């Protein structure tokens, strides 16, 4: 019997919620990695029991964790439980915590600074992994989007990491600027029909695309307009919050920007606004229905200065027309005195029919809908602040 596993990353650890395909009753396990920021967990689409997790801390830095049994046990790649963590000579076996920017002349076109808040140039400094994106074809290959913005790849199941330097080095890097939350690469999308094509998004630089497996990248921000930057239509500098794609229509992408909900039908070469009748076009997450490429979900919040649902009502908005025409989804969600937020990686969809959709809030609630958003139930109500949610299909 098929089921669903939700991987929930929070400010104080990770939780794993499981249910059968009815998605009514949920079992919650956790916290795992108690007390740490778990920015993201994601399972391999090839092997759902292979799960990667980003465990991070302002005190202790970055740790990558991996489970090979669906989250029952975890280890840092390179140091399986019960095995010695060092070689007989005493050297570490793995380097799973090591994210070092490529500055080699051969591959890196050394790039050492980006723009700081005050307009001066500032060295690139690794802080944490915001997002992990397992390969669509190989469970040992996984990509990491990091702060300060860069993309890393591991081809040995997370034991070692190497920057894909063509992104930082393609030319606009010195113009990238952190947002208040840092300069993180938070979105990685691998084109399901062409694995050499990938999309990434960075706050606050914009969106970028590679067509050759990550060697070369280019900005894809034409059509975006951001009034808070000196040139509102600049090639880079846009605070893109999240991008989503439907696998059946890979050239169509939907974007939640700092303000504005956007759409492209040519793989990012040109964007146009589809905010339509939303009560606010500010928000963080955006998702596409698993089976309907024109059905899109956002969670509007009032403003960048007021990061809570409009009118204190927690409403998911759904468009069934690919944008512009949006309807509020409210059944089962609090409709008064609600002042939580939903962060960019804290929504997910499953592939059951009808499609399930999930989101977590900064107030520690996780909500599930088993009917494409028509109604919602709480999976959990008192977790730590939720940073990320990923839904996995179980056979």
């Amino acid at each position, binding site marked *: 019997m098929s089921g669903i596993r939700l991987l929930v990353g929070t400010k104080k650890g990770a939780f794993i919620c499981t249910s059968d395909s009815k998605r009514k009753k949920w079992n919650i396990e956790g916290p795992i990695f*108690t*007390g*740490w920021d778990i920015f993201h967990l994601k399972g391999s689409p090839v092997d759902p029991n292979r799960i990667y997790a980003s465990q991070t*801390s*302002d*005190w*202790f*830095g*970055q*740790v990558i964790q991996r489970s090979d049994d669906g989250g029952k046990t975890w280890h*840092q790649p*390179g*140091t399986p439980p019960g095995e010695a*963590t*060092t070689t007989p000579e*005493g*050297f*570490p*076996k*793995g*380097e*799973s*915590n*090591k*994210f*070092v*920017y490529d500055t080699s002349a051969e591959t890196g076109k050394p790039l050492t600074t980006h723009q700081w808040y005050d307009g001066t140039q500032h060295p690139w400094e*690794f802080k944490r992994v915001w997002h992990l994106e397992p390969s669509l074809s190989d469970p040992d290959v996984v990509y990491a989007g990091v702060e300060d913005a860069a993309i890393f790849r591991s081809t040995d199941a997370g034991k070692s990491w190497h920057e894909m330097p063509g992104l930082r080095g393609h030319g606009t890097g010195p113009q990238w600027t952190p947002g208040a939350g840092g300069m993180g690469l938070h979105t990685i999308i691998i084109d399901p029909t062409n694995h050499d094509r990938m999309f990434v998004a960075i706050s606050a630089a914009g969106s970028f695309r590679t067509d050759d497996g990550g060697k070369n990248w280019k900005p894809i921000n034409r059509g975006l307009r951001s009034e808070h930057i000196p040139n509102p239509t600049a090639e880079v500098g846009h605070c893109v919050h999240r991008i989503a794609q439907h696998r059946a229509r890979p050239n169509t992408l939907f974007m939640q920007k700092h303000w504005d909900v956007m759409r492209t039908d040519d793989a990012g070469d040109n964007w146009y606004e589809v905010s339509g009748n939303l009560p606010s076009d500010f928000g963080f997450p955006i998702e596409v229905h698993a089976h309907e490429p024109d059905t899109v979900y956002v969670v509007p919040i009032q403003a960048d200065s007021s990061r809570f649902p409009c009118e204190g009502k927690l409403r998911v908005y759904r468009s069934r027309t690919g944008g512009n025409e949006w309807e509020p989804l409210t059944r089962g969600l609090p409709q008064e005195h609600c002042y939580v937020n939903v962060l960019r990686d804290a929504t997910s969809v499953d592939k059951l029919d009808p499609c399930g959709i999930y989101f977590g809030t900064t107030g520690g609630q996780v909500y599930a809908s088993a009917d494409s958003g028509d109604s919602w139930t709480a999976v959990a109500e008192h977790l730590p602040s939720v940073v990320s949610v990923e839904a996995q299909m179980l056979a």
Partner: protein
Amino acid sequence: MDTNAAKKIRVVLPYHLRLLAHVGGEVQLDVVEPITQRAVLDALERRYPMLCGTIRDQTSGKRRPFLRYYACQEDLSLESPDNPLPAAVAGGAEPFLIIGAIAGG
């Protein structure tokens, strides 16, 4: 005098790093003289590679800003990493303490 003799050095880790390293109380390390911060931390990371990067930055080797080093009721955080640690630490009478900043206000 044999300057390459290994000494038993006691190290106290903060709670989260003890969990990460799968250790309980203090850890005891064999450290070759001279006994310095760098020598102790190098030995710690060799024995517990999962701690690499959690105490010192992987690239610069600098102490992470929310951590401090103490021993013998003294703050050694700003000492040169190559200065000798107090004799009581080198002799195993006192531990080398790695302390996390208090997460409060």
